[in-house]
């Protein structure tokens, strides 16, 4: 080491191998502590969800509840991780797939499938095939939508938010229109396809979505360090030798698949991602996606499992999780817009 670095090491107490200072190691420690607390909270709520207030047959309750728990975990983790990553590539803390009208696109695609192919086609198809068809369509259209949005309006955040909301309402209206054309029976089929709720979980669907979600998150792992650079903005990232367009496109594909997965399981939850991703950024003040993404996943799990636990046992199922999430998330979204921090 040179004399200069030696002096710096002495003043700052630099760790020779990792080059981290005392302050940095303290920050890392506090992040680790937060992660442990988060993990414990997740585990605690999961246990409570399984074991709280069991009446009657334990094996029946555990079987049902573990399935519900698994789907809550898949949804929470997928939505949390994908929303945080989406914020990074969108270069904004206000934009998430939900806000950009992605959920409404899912509803529209489902409705169009039912009205074009007919409900019998869907039922004949079998769960895995149906899921793959849905996800492929959603990923394809979502990718087109996002690419167009980012290219045409990449400069102005408020235009993007507005376009997202307009596009979302447009898709919703189209879906409503298409569903009006259906017979009552077909409509009922559509409803069950759209809102497979947490309380009744199809084991087959759960298996497929869990597998795809795990694959999607595995695909995120090699991208994480590159996403740190994406966060610096397009020019700086290009200057550092990142193939910006390729990374953003790959990430968008993974995000669309993850969002499709969670939406296919439990239907749209507009503001869950926004809430979870921003909470994650607040509780671990770091730029590192290797930390941020897992934490966002964990916060997502906490939100869905904890939220559903409260809905079941405190509100005695008088309300649903998505209502609670959208109420809290919607208020938080307004707060973010008004404060307009870090656009």
């Amino acid at each position, binding site marked *: 080491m040179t004399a*200069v670095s030696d002096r710096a090491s002495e*003043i700052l107490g630099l760790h020779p191998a990792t080059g981290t200072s005392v302050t940095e190691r303290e920050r890392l420690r506090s992040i680790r502590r937060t992660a442990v607390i988060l993990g414990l909270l997740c585990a605690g709520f999961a246990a409570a969800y399984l074991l709280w207030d069991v009446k009657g047959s334990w094996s029946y309750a555990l079987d049902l509840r573990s399935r519900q728990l698994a789907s809550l975990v898949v949804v929470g983790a997928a939505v949390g991780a994908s929303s945080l990553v989406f914020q990074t590539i969108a270069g904004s*803390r206000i934009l998430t797939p939900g806000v950009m009208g992605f959920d409404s696109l899912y509803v529209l695609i489902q409705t169009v499938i039912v009205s074009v192919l007919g409900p019998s086609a869907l039922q004949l198809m079998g769960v895995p095939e149906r899921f793959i068809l849905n996800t492929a369509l959603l990923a394809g259209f979502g990718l087109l939508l996002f690419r167009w949005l980012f290219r045409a309006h990449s400069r102005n955040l408020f235009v993007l938010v507005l376009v997202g909301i307009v596009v979302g309402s447009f898709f919703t209206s189209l879906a409503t229109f298409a569903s009006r054309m259906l017979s009552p029976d077909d409509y009922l089929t559509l409803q069950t396809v759209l809102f497979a709720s947490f309380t009744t979980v199809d084991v087959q669907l759960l298996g497929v979505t869990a597998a795809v979600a795990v694959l999607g998150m595995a695909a995120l792992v090699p991208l994480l*360090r590159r996403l740190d650079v994406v966060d610096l*903005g397009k020019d700086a990232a*290009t200057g*550092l*030798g*990142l193939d910006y367009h390729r990374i953003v496109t790959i990430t968008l594909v993974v995000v669309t698949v993850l969002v499709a997965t969670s939406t296919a399981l439990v239907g749209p939850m507009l503001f869950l991602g926004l809430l979870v991703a921003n909470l994650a950024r607040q509780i671990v003040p770091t730029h590192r996606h290797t930390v941020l993404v897992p934490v966002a996943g964990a916060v997502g799990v906490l939100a869905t499992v904890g939220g559903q636990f409260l809905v079941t046992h405190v509100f005695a199922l008088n309300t649903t999780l998505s209502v609670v999430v959208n109420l809290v998330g919607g208020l938080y979204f307004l707060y973010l817009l008004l404060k307009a921090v870090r656009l």
Partner: protein
Amino acid sequence: MIDIKSVSHSYFDGAPKVLDDVAIDFPPGQVTALVGANGAGKSTLLSAMSRLLVPGSGQVLLDGVDVTKAAPTVVAKRMAVLRQDNRISARLSVVDLVRFGRFPYSSGRLSPECHEIVERALEYVDMTPMRDCFLDELSGGQRQRAFIAMVLAQDTDYILLDEPLNNLDMRHAAAIMQLLRRAADDLGRTVILVLHDINVAASYCDRIVAMRDGRVVIDGSPDEVMRAEVLSEVFGMQIPVHRVSGQLLAMHWAPLPAPALQAV
């Protein structure tokens, strides 16, 4: 050697050309200033050189290889670029930022050697005491120094900067210019930067390239450029030039009689 081969560019079809058949080269080992009025094409030229923009026609060669076709990390190890607008939404400390300079070498996993280079870069710009501060806690001058440390940590032969003195007071502006001058003299870096103040360019740079309407008007040493008739052609206004204590001064701020604006 950065070799610009007849580069032209306009931002959309039918728009006036922001770069009009620019052909110029930058041999290693000098500090070069790009000067000119707003809209002369300086920043666009810098973007084209640093492959942030693909020009409509022509090409930019870095040691004989087209920068838009070369592997991104290969270019990033030879040429670093710092843009004007560096708003970063992530919560970064100074040292986190500087570590990004090692990305082309490490893909984010820094070796002990990388860490040493990062600490040296911090020391070089005199930011070691502030290494763990977050960027939003810094003043403009400190921020700019942190960004320059990142560029130095990238360890490239070429450093391109777009108006690095923007929003800096004169003390910090002078400090940044001295820093860049030292990087060229001591570390052998080739620095190309966009500057607004012709006097700063004349005092710190070896070469001045003046542009107007997307073309290079003059390309020469400070002595060749700092002449009233040349400056009037570049900036479209009368600017008397005087020698004060051996230094050429363009008196564009001179009070009465006001410099008459030429009809452009």
